[in-house]
């Protein structure tokens, strides 16, 4: 249901977000089987009897900021869209620090609200590095995404916003993504000698248990 063009519908999201956008991004893991034949049913089995026309949540974004970015960085800006009226710009991982600096200085996004990652194991570049930025002057939020493969070094944005220091350490701790240029990349929440990166999708209690049994009892876990 994510790939079909949908009608526009005024969304009822509270004020403060950006106006609506355009078709969806390419990298959505289809967990819900797409119903290609029938027109897309409403996502919720709601009470009203007549099925409502589907709501388009992801739309392409082409505002002034995106234009400027594209103008300056060209192909490094992979994609720009809005999801639920929140602006998302996907950029090339290698130029992340540059683009971050430009966003801070010219784009006036002076605060790094959050820096995190998401793991999509089935993709070739499995990690999404997400930066949530905020501009005090424009009262605007922006999400910057970069894709990184396992083992690929992501440029650190510590030089742009000091806030990234602990945030990148946490991403390293949880995902194992190495940030090049970080002054002190070590684990922050887990003990220093912890093995493994918990928030990866292939890390779970079963794997830990098997590893422990193997290490301490020397046998294969029967689970």
């Amino acid at each position: 249901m994510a790939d079909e063009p949908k009608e526009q519908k005024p969304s009822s999201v509270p004020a403060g977000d950006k106006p609506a956008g355009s078709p969806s991004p390419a990298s959505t893991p289809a967990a819900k089987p797409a119903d290609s034949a029938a027109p897309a049913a409403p996502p919720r089995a709601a009470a009203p009897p007549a099925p409502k026309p589907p709501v388009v949540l992801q739309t392409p974004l082409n505002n002034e900021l995106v234009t400027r970015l594209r103008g300056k960085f060209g192909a490094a800006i992979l994609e720009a869209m809005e999801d639920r009226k929140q602006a998302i710009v996907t950029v090339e991982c290698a130029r992340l620090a540059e683009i971050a600096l430009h966003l801070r200085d010219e784009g006036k996004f002076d605060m790094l609200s959050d820096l995190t990652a998401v793991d999509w194991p089935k993709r070739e570049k499995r990690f999404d590095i997400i930066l949530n930025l905020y501009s005090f002057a424009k009262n605007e939020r922006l999400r910057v995404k970069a894709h990184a493969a396992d083992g690929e070094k992501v440029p650190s944005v510590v030089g742009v916003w000091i806030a990234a220091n602990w945030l990148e350490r946490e991403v390293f701790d949880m995902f194992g993504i190495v940030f090049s240029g970080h002054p002190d990349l070590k684990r922050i929440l887990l003990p220093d000698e912890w093995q493994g990166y918990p928030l990866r999708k292939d890390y779970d209690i079963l794997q830990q248990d098997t590893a422990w049994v193997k290490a301490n009892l020397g046998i294969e876990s029967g689970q």
Partner: protein
Amino acid sequence: MGESKPGNRERAVGYFRFEEETALNIEATSEHTILGADELIINMGPQHPSTHGVLRVKLKLDGERVIGSECIIGYLHRGVEKIAESRTYQQFAPYVDRMDYVAAVSNGLGYCEAIEKLLVVEAPPRARVIRTILTELQRIASHLLWLGTHALDIGALTPLFYCMREREEILKIFEKYCGARLTTHAFRIGGLQYEAYDTLEKDTERFCKDFEARIAEYEELLTQNRIWVGRTRGIGILTAEDAIAFGVTGPVLRASGVKWDIRKAAPYAAYDQYKFEIPVGTTGDTYDRYIVRMEEMRQSRLICLQAIENIPAGPILAKVGKVLKPPPGEVYHAIEAPKGELGYYVVSDGTVQPYRVRIRPPSFINLQAFDRMVRGHLVADVVAIIGTIDIVLGEVDR
């Protein structure tokens, strides 16, 4: 720019040395202090009466002055974000209370609103107003606990008990509303589960009417007190540029002079309907943070009084159904929690369980600025500065 110090970091696994720099030679600005001859490293261990939880602080001292510090956290890490990936959206809601356990209602509000954004539904007006009332009461309760413990660290023994007395009233209201005092799980995705109990407005009004005199009591004990001013003025200064660069939010940012509050910048719940002021400090020292939080308590009280005058009638829960399957996508929703900007970044893949829930904890990010705030101060001020950032380790570590 990092050089590893073999002496300190032998045990680290998964630690990488960095010698390369990025193409633009962007230098990281956090320094390593090099251990010199007259320097002493003191450990304020995880168990300490004044670190408000299990926080370990390593201080590098030159005599009595702090010349460097390192916060070691993670003692309360419970893997909440990983747990979220194997719970349904509703099942995860009680977990968020346990992060900032001092202000559970705010956590719940942020989470429920984030999922509502994900589902593209809106809570009905009545639910939004009641949510506002409870969240503002929770803000007062959180600030009261902060005030009591902060004053206790600095040596004033009495405000703690007065603050607890007021906080008790608020917790009684919560208990009457949803059955729990601390980890309330007060809100549901789509609105509220419980209707406001019949005397909610009266209780809130009575509390708010008494509270004005109580705040005056605390101020009388502390605000003009010579010793209090001497212990807090000029201590732990964080300039506005530093605060923004560190991503600091909440009362700490406002005390540094940046007038920013998500309740005004991007109103949520019913905040756009009420008039209130945003207190702003000037120098960003501990005293300013104290004044800002006291004033915030007053403003919260005003919001409550305005809100209870006119709670709209109507349903309290939007029609979201029992099984929540938000359409695939992602959302970042931030609210103004008592500690700062509490953000939820939720990625949905269309199933009943979230694909990723990331919680942007204000205390974690505010604590990063601790090193900047504490340099140059005496050891006796360390405790005051930890207290003034107002951290809750449950939120720092998740």
